[in-house]
């Protein structure tokens, strides 16, 4: 908008300059015409005296001669000798005789008084001569120019406004495009890129630069992930071999204490293997973009099964496990195994972090647009600042470092949730943690 006003103001100034310049030029033209006419009349006067001048003026102002010329010759008593004015204009003028005065002729329908510009001077014999121009035509031209320039100004302003709006909208739509893409990337779709046009303008260059930056970031992230996956993959086989060697060794130890040590080593190896397997499983789920094997899964059944698996564990800790699922099916498009693991992992955490006598509630609601799963516990909960971080691999809360676990449970949950185009959020259950997952409703 400020652009439009700046543009309009400069056009206004330009127009004003043109107007003033043109008008002063026209006024000058008038003056110089009068000047040259005076010179002509002076010449005639020098040759033929008053009678010759009278004759000449009479010819010039005869009714047949048209034009805006004003000529008056008066005798020393200011009586009109000859000319096209009835009276000698009695108005003050400049020292060298220039003056502007009103013509008092009756105009046909002319309500505005007509102005004239003239120069008067004294002739040798006491006669006065007035040479001037009716300014009516000049005034008309001035008005015409003013009108034209005003219209030009209006048109320019309107065009500036329309053009400005069009350009602004184009810019806004491109910024909006960049914003939208950024949001999608922030929301996890790291493969997204900002569309670039073919014009190679500033926006295209900006988009290209941003895209290159995103490529670089993705490359780095991919690199970090690949390294951890490669480590997991490459160490898995020798670790399994180590575990099996220990297993073979176990039977050789007759001493119970030694056998116990070997057994502990085997369990350590099993724990490491489980971590590596979980890491690789997450990597595989994340790399799976458009799974074609997803089928209708009844979330109610998935939850009942998982609750059934964890119920004795909760009971052992004197916790109450309340399960509320609809009696009817709650279908989502998914992988039953992965969804079961999601529910199992969250329940596992809930049982682990809820104190004895605590309550764990599982609730499934089948809405018109989404199927919403909620698992709430009465444990210590997760601080707001850490809620995003717990989905990172190997991230563990300070308070839970001493309890068993590999810090991959919620990473897997996040990967599976994203695979199912679902949304997960962690909330405060006052006290405790509430995990809510919204699954999009199955199509059709």
């Amino acid at each position, binding site marked *: 908008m400020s652009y439009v006003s700046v543009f309009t103001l400069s056009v206004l100034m330009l127009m004003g300059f043109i107007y003033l310049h043109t008008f002063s030029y026209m006024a000058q033209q008038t003056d110089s015409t009068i000047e040259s006419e005076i010179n002509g009349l002076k010449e005639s006067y020098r040759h033929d005296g008053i009678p010759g001048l009278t004759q000449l003026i009479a010819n010039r102002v005869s009714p047949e001669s048209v034009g805006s010329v004003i000529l008056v010759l008066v005798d020393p008593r200011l009586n009109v000798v000859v000319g096209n004015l009835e009276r000698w204009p009695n108005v003050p003028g400049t020292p060298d005789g220039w003056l502007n005065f009103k013509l008092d002729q009756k105009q046909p329908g002319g309500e505005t008084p007509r102005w004239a510009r003239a120069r008067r001077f004294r002739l040798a014999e006491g006669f006065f001569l007035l040479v001037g121009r009716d300014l009516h035509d000049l005034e008309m031209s001035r008005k015409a120019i003013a009108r034209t320039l005003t219209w030009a100004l209006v048109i320019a302003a309107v065009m500036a406004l329309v053009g400005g709006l069009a350009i602004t909208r184009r810019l806004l739509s491109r910024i909006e495009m960049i914003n939208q893409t950024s949001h999608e990337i922030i929301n996890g779709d790291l493969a997204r890129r900002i569309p670039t046009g073919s014009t190679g303008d500033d926006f295209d260059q900006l988009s290209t630069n941003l895209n290159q930056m995103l490529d670089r970031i993705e490359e780095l992230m991919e690199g970090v992930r690949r390294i951890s996956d490669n480590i997991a993959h490459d160490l*898995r*086989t020798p670790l399994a071999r180590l575990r099996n060697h220990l297993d073979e060794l176990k039977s050789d130890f007759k001493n119970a204490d030694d056998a116990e040590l070997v057994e502990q080593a*085997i369990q350590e190896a099993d724990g490491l*293997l489980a971590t590596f397997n979980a890491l690789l499983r997450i990597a*595989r789920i994340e790399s799976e973009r458009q*799974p074609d094997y997803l089928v209708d899964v009844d979330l109610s059944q998935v939850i009942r099964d998982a609750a059934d698996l964890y119920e*004795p564990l909760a009971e052992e800790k004197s916790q109450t496990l309340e399960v509320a699922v609809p009696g009817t099916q709650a279908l989502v498009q998914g992988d039953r*195994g992965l969804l079961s693991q999601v529910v199992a992992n969250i329940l*596992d955490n809930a049982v682990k972090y809820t104190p004895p006598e605590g309550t764990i509630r599982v609730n499934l609601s089948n809405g018109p647009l989404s199927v919403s799963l909620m698992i709430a516990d009465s444990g210590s909960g997760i601080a707001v600042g850490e809620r995003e971080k717990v989905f990172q691999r190997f991230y563990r809360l300070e308070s839970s470092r001493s309890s068993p676990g590999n810090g991959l449970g919620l990473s897997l949950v996040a990967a599976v949730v994203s695979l199912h185009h679902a949304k997960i959020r962690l909330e405060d259950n006052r006290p405790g943690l509430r995990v809510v997952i919204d699954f999009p409703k199955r199509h059709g």
Partner: protein
Amino acid sequence: MQLLVIEDDAKTAAYLCKGLKESGHNVDHAGDGKDGLFMAMENEYDAIVIDRMLPELDGLSVIRTLRAAKKSTPVLVLSALGEVDDRVKGLKAGSDDYLVKPFAFSELMARLEALTRRSEGDGSQTVLRVADLEMDLLSREVRRAGIPVELQPREFRLLEYLMRHAGQVVTRTMLLENVWDYHFDPQTNVIDVHISRLRGKIDRDFDQPLLQTIRGAGYCLRA
């Protein structure tokens, strides 16, 4: 048992054959899919252990060909792939069990035992018996020494699986897969709690414990 191992990786094959032989089985080894299929067709094996990725002919094709030729030898597929739907593909091709590499040898052994026993049993029993423990599959009643034992549906299925594999080592993973149809290991050892609860119902009031824990391997129901 008469076993066939079809595995192209020499190290894995040597390790498998050595372990199986030490466990008292006769083992044949084939290094590629073609040889493996030929040997499986020619001889009668109690079970076949086959790698999924093989030169000449891949594992799943070998199984499909065997099944098409009406060979019902139990097959256990080994795979380095752990794709989410991989197990399903393996089972669809006609394999009986699926084990992702790397695996503990005890896990493989337990599964092979389960596979060969399954092919022995006639599956039409209506009453399962282990010592004085009795399970009626039709009336869904369980008695220990004639005294009725009250079980939840899931406990019933757990006990049924253990009784069907009485005398064999059953791993936690096998229980998760067969009783809960879960193909992942939960973080906490939930199975232990289920087992101890079941133990409380069938063993607590009796002198002779039937449900035993095999350290580092799993459980075993035996007299």
